[in-house]
């Protein structure tokens, strides 16, 4: 089936404005009888919940953390993009649009990306008005910096805590609506299923993580803002609780999943140190503005970095990409690091690392300047590794970071089940096969503040409010299924911990479906995943009961879903016989090892439809057309 994204007609720059005007608004007196369930309180969810409530809707907002303010968005460091062109360096909506399309390697929808660029400026206005303490110039105006993969300064930031400050702004806006009585927040509550009846979204099934009670919530629309799934790799830069459960359960209920194999591996993270490591810490990409990346020219060179003379170092990014050098986009920088390590030229324990060297920058700018720019990052690096990055280069290595793939949505951000909206990292969105730095925060807030509130209202106009009615038998049926699954997880009483299985899955995914992928590796993974899954259901240990706070049970449910979802990622990666952005198939590369797209065969969004357990999912295609920017080979050389 060919999927229809319902892109409005008209010239690209006019589409959103015309469409926005045509969307039907709801009178607040009608809106207040409609209940919208917003799952997730990250940037996307909190901004949507606040805005929907401002427009009069009754909102129920959920998160699994103990407070809405702790959603994973809080951890974003670097910044948020907007086309304000304050530095007057030639930026524009047009240019942000072009950079995003090219950065995404021509696998995103032109109309959506254009809208994103258009909305970007209003986001900054909104956040500044909320009191987000953005960095300022001495004249009191907003400061900008440049960020991975682009040459203009369009990134707004609040020290190294941009995500935190933007999220607090959205959270506060939402709490204002809690006070107004229009939002109810349910922290420590996890969505475990979607309720669909008569082909429409009717509600969700949740578990209260404190009491263990499982119950259903009905709503006139459901907005999923549940974030990304990079933790399928076990170790990633994401928070420990990040998971795919909400999105995957919606997929099983009929929502199509788009481009699951488009995952982003971030080039600058602290390398893995030991078996019990639980997390890979991101070192902000901004470090690449001043640090130089290198490895020894010779294989197996174990000399300390200071004893390796200049002539025996390979500054491989500068060598291979003279135009962008150390600022090459993430997918390219990550792959290049893997390549030199695979050649045996990696540094540090296990040879899984490359140097990020600040010696030249310190010499040129002085230690004080470097300290001002990156002091907190150097401190963090020392705390974790016990090494001083002023004295010797940092060691970094790529790590799973972001999911470009997600639930398929149309131009209105509605999925394939009517009444199910998906926003933020959870949808497949606007980043194609690779996301540019500082664009996820922009997209989450564009979706949440400016798009979903309008399209949800349009969907609800002219419909009869359900008024919290959960009487349809579909609710009881879904709840029973969740209860049954919980009971099964607790009944295994095996010998291996949930984490042990997660680690096995993560390693397999990293090896066979990570930075580079091959038909042989993916086929192997597709055979191995069901084996790990079977072992999980035979031998996992989840102690305690279901009617209490039980963190092992929470994790078990998430890992069980990953053990199914991982297969979908590998299947998608196997079917896409081309390399694009973060998806690198070794069979498809140019003579000098660059990703080779196949536009004739794969210029489409792959949306997968669940067909039942043990059945291969059905592939639907949404063809992509590039009218404004002609298809071309990405070049950062």
């Amino acid at each position, binding site marked *: 089936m060919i999927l229809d994204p319902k892109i409005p007609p008209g010239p690209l720059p006019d589409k959103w404005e015309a469409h926005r005007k045509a969307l039907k608004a709801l009178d607040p007196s009608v809106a207040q009888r409609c209940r919208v369930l917003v799952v997730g309180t990250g940037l996307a969810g909190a901004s949507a919940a606040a805005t929907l409530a401002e427009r009069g809707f009754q909102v129920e907002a959920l998160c699994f953390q103990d407070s809405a303010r*702790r959603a994973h968005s809080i951890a974003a460091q670097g910044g948020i993009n907007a086309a304000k062109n304050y530095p007057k360096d030639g930026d524009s909506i047009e240019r942000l649009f072009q950079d995003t399309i090219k950065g995404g390697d021509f696998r995103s929808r032109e109309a959506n990306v254009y809208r994103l660029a258009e909305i970007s400026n209003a986001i900054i206005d909104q956040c500044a008005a909320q*009191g987000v303490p953005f960095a300022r110039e001495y004249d009191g105006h907003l400061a900008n910096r440049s960020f991975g993969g682009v040459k203009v300064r369009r990134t707004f930031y609040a020290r190294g805590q941009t995500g935190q400050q933007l999220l607090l702004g959205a959270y506060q806006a939402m709490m204002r609506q809690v006070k107004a009585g229009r939002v109810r927040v349910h922290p420590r509550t996890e969505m475990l299923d979607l309720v669909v009846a008569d082909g429409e979204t009717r509600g969700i099934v949740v578990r209260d993580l404190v009491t263990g009670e499982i119950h259903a919530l009905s709503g006139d629309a459901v907005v999923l803002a549940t974030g990304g799934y990079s933790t399928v790799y076990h170790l990633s830069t994401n928070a420990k609780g990040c998971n795919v459960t909400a999105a995957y359960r919606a997929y099983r209920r009929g929502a199509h999943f788009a481009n699951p194999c488009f995952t982003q591996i971030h080039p600058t993270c602290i390398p893995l140190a030991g078996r019990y490591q639980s997390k890979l810490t991101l070192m902000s990409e901004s470090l690449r503005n001043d640090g130089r990346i290198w490895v020894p020219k010779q294989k197996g060179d174990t000399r300390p970095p200071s004893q390796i003379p200049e002539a025996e170092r390979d500054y491989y990014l500068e060598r291979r990409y003279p135009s962008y050098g150390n600022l090459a986009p993430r997918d390219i920088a990550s792959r290049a690091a893997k390549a030199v390590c695979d050649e045996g030229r990696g540094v540090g324990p296990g040879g899984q690392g490359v140097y990020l060297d600040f010696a030249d920058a310190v010499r040129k700018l002085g230690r004080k300047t470097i300290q001002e720019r990156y002091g907190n990052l150097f401190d963090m690096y020392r705390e974790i590794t*016990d090494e001083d990055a002023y004295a010797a280069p940092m060691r970094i290595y790529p790590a799973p970071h972001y999911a470009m793939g997600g639930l398929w949505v149309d131009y209105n951000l509605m999925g394939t089940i009517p009444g199910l909206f998906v926003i933020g990292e959870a949808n497949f969105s606007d980043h194609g096969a690779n996301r540019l730095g500082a664009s996820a925060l922009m997209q989450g807030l564009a979706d949440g503040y400016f798009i979903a509130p309008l399209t949800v209202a349009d969907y609800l106009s002219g419909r009869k409010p359900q008024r919290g009615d959960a009487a349809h038998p579909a609710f009881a049926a879904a709840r029973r299924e969740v209860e049954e699954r919980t009971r099964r997880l607790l009944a295994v009483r095996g010998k291996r911990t949930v984490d042990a299985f997660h680690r096995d899955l993560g390693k397999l995914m990293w090896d066979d479906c990570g930075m580079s992928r091959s038909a042989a590796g993916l086929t192997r993974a597709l055979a191995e995943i069901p084996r790990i899954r079977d072992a999980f259901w035979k031998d996992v240990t989840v102690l305690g009961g279901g009617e209490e706070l039980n963190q092992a049970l929470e994790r078990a449910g998430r890992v069980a879903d990953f053990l199914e979802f991982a297969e979908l990622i590998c299947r998608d990666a196997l079917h896409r016989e081309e390399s694009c952005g973060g998806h690198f198939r070794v069979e498809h590369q140019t003579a000098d090892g660059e990703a080779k797209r196949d536009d004739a065969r794969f210029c489409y969004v792959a949306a997968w439809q669940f067909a039942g357990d043990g059945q291969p999912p059905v592939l639907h295609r949404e063809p992509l057309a590039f009218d404004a920017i002609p298809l071309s080979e990405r070049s950062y050389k």
Partner: protein
Amino acid sequence: MRLTLRVWRQKSAKEPGRFETYEAKDISPDLSFLELLDVVNDGLQQRGLDPIAFDHDCREGICGSCAMMINGEAHGPQPAVAACQLYLRHFKDGETLTIEPWRARAFPIIRDLIVDRSAFDRIIQAGGYVSVDTGSAPEANSVPVPKPDAEEAMDAAACIGCGACVAACPNASAMLFVAAKVSHLAKLPQGQAERKPRVLNMVEQMDREGFGNCTNHYECMAACPKSIHVKFIAQLNRDYLKACRRR
């Protein structure tokens, strides 16, 4: 290295709690404190015992989830880090560590090291925001903010809401938390219109939640993983008095 852990175990708010002792042997000093708890939990589960429940998420000191007293100190002995950023190399081989939840009337225990911090959310709800509906904001650069004010606002806004300030205070006062939010918004032009009702409402809610009074011990600043400065408490007091006088 080897560590002995005395950990507070409590099945629920209703049941009494007690300390249990666990040995952690052959552990790498490069582990973080929460990874140590992961290792101990792995061992407990292998032996069929309930793992220790503790809040955590980002594991990089920004979400404010992790919260525990380590040897009587909130987030442990290292200054300016959360428990998730505390590495075992700061402890001595063979040391015994006592691990407890935050203790405060306003933070009731849920299980083991997990407490209910929703009082903080209710304080924000009482007024910790700027009232501006989506889409009604002026152009961002039309309201310049002097750089020093923006920097100071950011110093206060860096609070991660973990509750260490309350746990460290002999009176279980939430003044540093409230002061951080009040000062963040008071330093910015956007926060002026609601400055008075904000401080009154937030302080009133803080009192209603059962937090204690500030008697200038300043343990809060020492325990704060973000080193939020007590000067913001002075700012809060000034704003509060001014708002009261004009009421």
